[in-house]
């Protein structure tokens, strides 16, 4: 068997979100098993371990599953990611932190076993600002942009990038931290109401998102100028606000909805046969799609590794190599039934962060759907790359690591 352990969380403050992601992840492997007989003929198994978004339990889950031939870890928590970075490296197991975790892990020369393609927090910040800049016809000078963020390692990630961008583009950045769990955001939103920033960006998670969107609606902040990170762009976040959430935007690195052929297969092989994880009601939600996409990439990398090493039962080390040379082009996406779902991916030894492309999605409260309103656009590499280099160098120094050679 090919083992893809799931460190998921279905309880605790972030349980609702974790559940959707986990369902998507599990369902895709079920689909592969049911439809194709697994990956390259080998069944994929997804032993699940509940972390409750708690780093300690995450470590325990890691230790308890790694002996079962785990191929790749996806902890879906920035805290757990940080914990595992040195461990996976020592254990020679790759870790894929898709759109979260340590951004500078994009530097494959330092972080040999950590991948965060197809995009990072900093890519997201940059793409959001690009969208803002488009809306402002390219002129951000003197604009006031507020960042409402989860007061934790995760929420603080974009600050550096935004500060750089602010310096370059001449806008003013206002920082508004919100403490976990974030049910009370009166102060932040009153301040926003007073200062009338032109745009509000949000890096939130869990209940914080819902409350923020509700408060924004209450103070009648123009929703199309309120843009969240991909972790603030699920149905859970907007639904409680009803009509007031109409027009809210979020950045994303993959497509939305169920308008892709793959969902027919999922319905046929997974949902209708009663094999869906959970009760099947999550299929097609933003986070479900993300979980599914994560599984797609994992499966592709596994298949890649099988090809590279010409073996069915790959090891975690081989999986790592498979990930490092992963290429998913549009043709392949189409073959997967995911045409246009996400941009092409091309992972290399130096670049574990992928293309860094992202699009903006917008919420329609009438139809209760997300829709993509932009193409997948690239982030500002010239801002982000130096930051990545700087941060990964600091990590390397602290841990006395030397950069790997990447032969190209």
């Amino acid at each position, binding site marked *: 068997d090919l083992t893809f352990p799931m460190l998921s969380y279905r*309880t605790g*403050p972030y349980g609702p979100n974790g*559940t959707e992601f986990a369902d998507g992840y599990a369902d895709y492997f079920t689909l592969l098993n049911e439809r194709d007989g697994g990956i390259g003929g080998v069944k994929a198994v997804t032993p699940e371990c509940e972390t409750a978004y708690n780093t300690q339990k995450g470590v325990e889950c890691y230790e308890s599953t790694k002996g079962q031939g785990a191929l790749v870890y996806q902890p879906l928590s920035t805290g757990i990611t940080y914990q595992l970075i040195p461990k996976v490296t020592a254990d020679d197991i790759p870790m894929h932190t898709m759109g979260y975790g340590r951004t500078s892990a994009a530097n494959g020369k330092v972080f040999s076993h950590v991948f965060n393609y197809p995009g990072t927090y900093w890519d997201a910040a940059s793409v959001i600002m690009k969208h803002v800049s488009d809306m402002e016809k390219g002129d951000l000078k003197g604009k006031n942009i507020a960042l409402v963020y989860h007061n934790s390692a995760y929420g603080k990630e974009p600050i550096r990038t935004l500060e750089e961008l602010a310096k370059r583009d001449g806008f003013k950045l206002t920082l508004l*931290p*919100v*403490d976990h769990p974030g049910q009370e955001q009166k102060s932040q939103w009153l301040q926003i109401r007073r200062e009338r920033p032109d745009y509000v960006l949000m890096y939130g998670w869990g209940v914080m998102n819902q409350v923020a969107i509700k408060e924004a609606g209450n103070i*009648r902040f123009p929703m199309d100028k309120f843009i969240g990170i991909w972790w603030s762009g699920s149905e859970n976040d907007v639904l*409680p606000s009803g009509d*007031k959430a109409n027009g809210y935007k979020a950045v994303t690195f993959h497509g939305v909805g169920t308008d892709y052929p793959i969902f027919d297969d999922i319905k046929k092989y997974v949902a209708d046969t009663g094999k869906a994880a959970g*009760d099947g009601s999550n299929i097609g939600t933003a986070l479900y799609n993300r979980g599914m996409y994560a599984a797609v990439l994992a499966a592709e990398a596994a298949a890649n590794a099988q090809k590279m090493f010409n073996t069915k039962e790959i090891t975690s080390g081989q999986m790592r190599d498979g990930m490092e040379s992963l290429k998913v082009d549009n043709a392949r996406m189409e073959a997967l039934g995911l045409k246009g779902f996400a941009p092409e991916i091309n992972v290399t030894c130096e670049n574990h962060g992928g293309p860094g492309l992202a699009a903006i999605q917008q919420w329609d409260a009438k139809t209760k759907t997300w829709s993509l309103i932009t193409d997948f656009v690239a982030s500002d590499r010239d801002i982000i790359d130096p930051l990545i280099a700087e941060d990964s160098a600091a990590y390397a120094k602290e841990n006395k690591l030397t950069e790997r050679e990447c032969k190209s």
Partner: protein
Amino acid sequence: MSPVILNALEVILNGLMAGVMYALVALGFVLIYKASGIFNYAQGVMALFAALTLVGFQTGQIPFAHLINAIFGTKLHHWGDGMNTFLAIILTMLVMILFAWLLEKIVLKHMVNQAPIILFMTTIGLAYFMEGFGDLMWGADIKTMDVGLPSGGSFWLEDFTRGWAAEGTEYYGMYIDVLDVWAAGIAILLVIALTLFSQYTKTGRALRAVADDHQAALTVGISLRSIWIIVWSLAGFVALVAGIMWGSKSGVQFSLSLIALKALPVLILGGFTSIPGAIIGGLIIGVGEKLFEYSIGSMIGGATENWFAYVLALAFLMFRPQGLFGEKIIERV
């Protein structure tokens, strides 16, 4: 008036409103403490549970559907379209009473005459239990609470106050959330009713007697059973109200139970045993933390509210160790 003053006024006003919301949760704590000397950590989870149950009834969810499906391979989730809100509230209340009854029967009965910290611990166990139970019963997904309460900024106040600022300054009027105004009204009604109940009725007196000395209460014929069922049902009711209010604000999901942490500073500031104390404590904490965040917090990096509420409460306690309105702690030998 200058916008600065107006803004500060606005912050105070909203602080008051936030305080009322905290007080709603704190009230549940006070009720139980007053009546049995139990510091009920599970109050927050009770609010969550009540809210979950209410929404479940409203939308016609089948309880334990997930568990049943997992065991029998069925695909249950809803039965029809749910029910009328009012009916759902009544049913939820019945569930809370049933809960109180079971709790007394299974747990509290054995806890007579135990040290406060043991009782406290028991309620933490209870909190875990209810959390797991609620999740099992209704699922852990996010639910939207809609009982028809209005929400959103008040246009009336905005328009009314817009003219207050001096000519030529940029001022948008004052903001207040209508939901909060409702909450304030409900909270005041609750406080009045509960105060009258505990101070002027025979049962109220018995409640306080039980809190002082379980054994002695037994010897005068007070039935701890009925008292505890009454109080926990009442607390369940308060939890339901808090659950509705907070649920309307932030959706119904696990985090709802964490509002307990916002209620604790209110509780110690007002005093564990004072019902009016809960509301006044709430107001002080609400205004205090919002004003601090507005004036100083934003300068030192923000997100100060959590700890400031506690520090503020602590400062009051240094002068009155039993909280503003709490019963004096009797120190005698």
